[in-house]
């Protein structure tokens, strides 16, 4: 784990969508936040899909392949690992992923990317 000094209070737990994503505004940036209720896990990635640079990943469907959690871009269904950001279909570049923590019912995103 890297050192996080900047934690962004993104939203309340109940504002996040169960087994889906929401988009968090961070200045000029957009971060996709996923509440993978089924696995009881939280993930955050860049919202922009590297394929055609669309601000769309937060609207994508999440799921898994073998045990790897992933999100599928709604535009052309390219999939990316939620844990590493790696592109799982074809050779798009990887997406940035961010750490997430929950404190007192608030979801925080560490704004220094993990990868």
């Amino acid at each position, binding site marked *: 784990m890297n050192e996080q000094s900047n934690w962004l209070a993104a939203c309340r737990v109940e504002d996040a969508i*169960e087994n889906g994503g929401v988009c968090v505004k961070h200045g000029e940036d957009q971060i996709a936040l996923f509440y993978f209720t089924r696995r009881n896990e939280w993930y955050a990635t860049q919202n922009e899909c590297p394929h055609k640079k669309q601000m769309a990943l937060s609207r994508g469907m999440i799921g898994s392949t073998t045990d790897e959690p992933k999100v599928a871009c709604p535009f052309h269904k390219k999939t990316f690992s939620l844990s590493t950001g790696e592109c799982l279909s074809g050779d798009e570049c990887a997406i940035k992923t961010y750490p997430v923590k929950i404190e007192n019912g608030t979801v925080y995103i560490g704004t220094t990317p993990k990868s």
Partner: protein
Amino acid sequence: MKEPQIIVIGNGMVGYKFCEKLRSKTSSFNLIVFGEEPRRAYDRVHLSEYFNGKTADDLSLSTENWYQEQNITLFLNNPIVKIDRELQKVYTASGLDYHYDILVFATGSGAFVPNIPGIEKEGVFVYRTIEDLDLISGYAKKAKTASVIGGGLLGLEAAKALIDLGIEKTSIIEFAPRLMPRQIDAAGSDMLKSKLADLGLQIHLNKNTTSIEGDGRITALKFSDDTALDVDMLVISAGIKPRDELAKACGIEVGPRGGIVVDQKMQTNDPAIFAIGECALYDGMIYGLIAPGYEMAEVLAANLCEGEKTFTGFDMSTKLKLIGIDVASFGDNFITEPDCRTIIFENKHKGVYKRINVSNDGQYLLGGILIGDATAYNLLLQTSNNRVVLPENPEELILGTRGGSESAGGAGITGLPDSALICSCEGVSKGDICAAVADGSCENIDDLKKCTKAGTGCGGCLPMVKDLMTYTLKSQGKYIKNVICEHFNYSRQELFDLIHIHELKSYDAVLDALGKNDGCEVCKPLVSSLLASLWNEMILKKGNDVAQDSNDRFLANIQKGGSYSVVPRVPGGEITPDKLIVIGEVAKKYNLYTKITGGQRIDMFGAHLNDLPIIWEELIAAGFESGHAYGKGLRTVKSCVGSTWCRFGLHDSVSFAIRIEERYRGIRAPHKFKSAVSGCIRECAEAQSKDFGIIATEKGWNLYVCGNGGSKPQHALLLATDLDSETCIKYIDRFLMFYIRTADPLTRTATWLNKMEGGIDYLRNVIINDSLGMAAQWENEIENLIASYKCEWKEAVENPAIRKRFSHFVNAPEDKDPTIEFVEMRGQKRTAEWKTV
């Protein structure tokens, strides 16, 4: 020691196959190939697919690196222009010379161009290479009429290509009194001719073209009977001419009508020189098909590696699909009585003609011709080639059995010997195929193609290869099905029934009960669609919302750039001026781009996610409802103006279209579906291109099903005639439920029908005669779906929890996505181009 050097002239289909075969046997020999064309060998047999979207790369027989990987030196765009047999050297157009120890001609053939005055005019083409096709499609843009000289296999194919290119009037000129004179008889030709005429092709038989008229470019054809025909372009397809000019020039023996003379080992009169493929003349014959060419390649490659193979002639049986019409001939197709017994079946109404020639003792099948329906081709060919003893009533081979008994004719594929050659292009036998399946190495057709190569040539044997695979798998007790993804080990149809039986209502419940792990973007929308088809509950109910495809999730289609479209339903395309004004006002207020669609309604593009609820609120207040343009369900029921205004109209097509659109709106299906109603046979609503279409007749309605527009247009087929409105709707109910229950995911009705065993006859039996005994249940189910219809958008805007989801930022709900960009075009906005990466 230096390796002996083989030079191959010609990088066509057979030349390529020779390289492949040789390299699969040995890595010795220096192999150098010279090609005249600018690209690597490609699939000439499927050349016409170049017009249907295949690229030159798709047609290529090998990958770019293949030659290098195989240690083959390939020169393209560099024909050999001279051969010196004494020095054993070839000379290239670019001025190089190379020594050969062994020289192989694989120069193929060119189009035979008869010496008609005017043949050199602009607008006259041949049909053999990708370059020819590029020239043809370029010229066709400005042509309205076209002719093809030659009514043989290639001529018909060229004519089809011209129709595909959008030429309004295409005709075929044939010198002989019948079409495809080498393959089919006069009766078969008549049948083919009338089917082709139905499709708008004009056929002129017994026509001898005497000149090509026009000032520089072609404008007309003149014939020996003093008639003439105006045409803008012409494709010559009058036969092939072997490319033997080089061989002839260096003194190698050629036939009187062309072709490099070879023996059983493909050797010419010079022992160091061989010829294979369409340039080779064996036993007085040029084999203008791909399978014998491949066999020649095999014979030569084997012999160069110390094998002992000979070429002893080849079966010239063929099966093709011309403009959607099956045409096949096999074995001794022209033998007539008294040398055999001939059995003929003809159905003019359906355009089917079948003829088989049986030995006089009734024991063996000698050959035959099939037009309009060649499903039995592979089996008949095998029965004849393998001298399988015929059943007592050989007519069953072409008629199918009547009454009782299951197996149609002989013992079917099971009756064939293991040695039966199934794929003649690649020389794969029944035994090879069954063994590859039985030892577990291949479980699907792609594996099978990879490991046996069966079906990778002309593809004609694929149906039989599939049958053999299924048969072998079944006989091993294996059961084949299309499972959905790694999370569900079921087919769509199985899952449908299981969800129904267990009364599961949410995606998670289905995953818990029937699947494993966390699901994915494949099973989520599929299960959501099944849930919607079964229960018709609000698709954005909590938990199910995130399992919807993104279009369903926001009840709008996501567009390039990330904005959404808004499409209210306009049943039957009928709309009042007041409602038109509302659309205009809403579009103006929210700055939306407007366009009238092919489905007779109005799309509004460019809405921000945040604006969707408020836009819909206004539309709903004015009496609109969701148009489901985002869902896999009914899109529109298009209608013509019908008897209320049109002087030809027989019934009120608009009222019927509205009734139907309102009946089926919102019902979810494996894919979208469309419909239309026309008020008379003039068909202004184009009902025959729809998933179901209705055309008024004097006595009622004709119902057509399983048509399709789009990239693979398909004419709808007539299901029932002269129905009253109630019966028509009853049949549509049954049809839709049958489709919803049984189609594979994302399968349109046309494809669903194409895959259905028994085709339209089976479907008709299920829908009209209720052969499955399901009609009452289906009618009941669809009534429930109809009764539970609600406008999704109304529910969404009235439900605060759902409405909350229509904002871009969770932490700044009022802010819109600042990255969405529009540019101006013709006084409206449009989305900016994809941002380049």
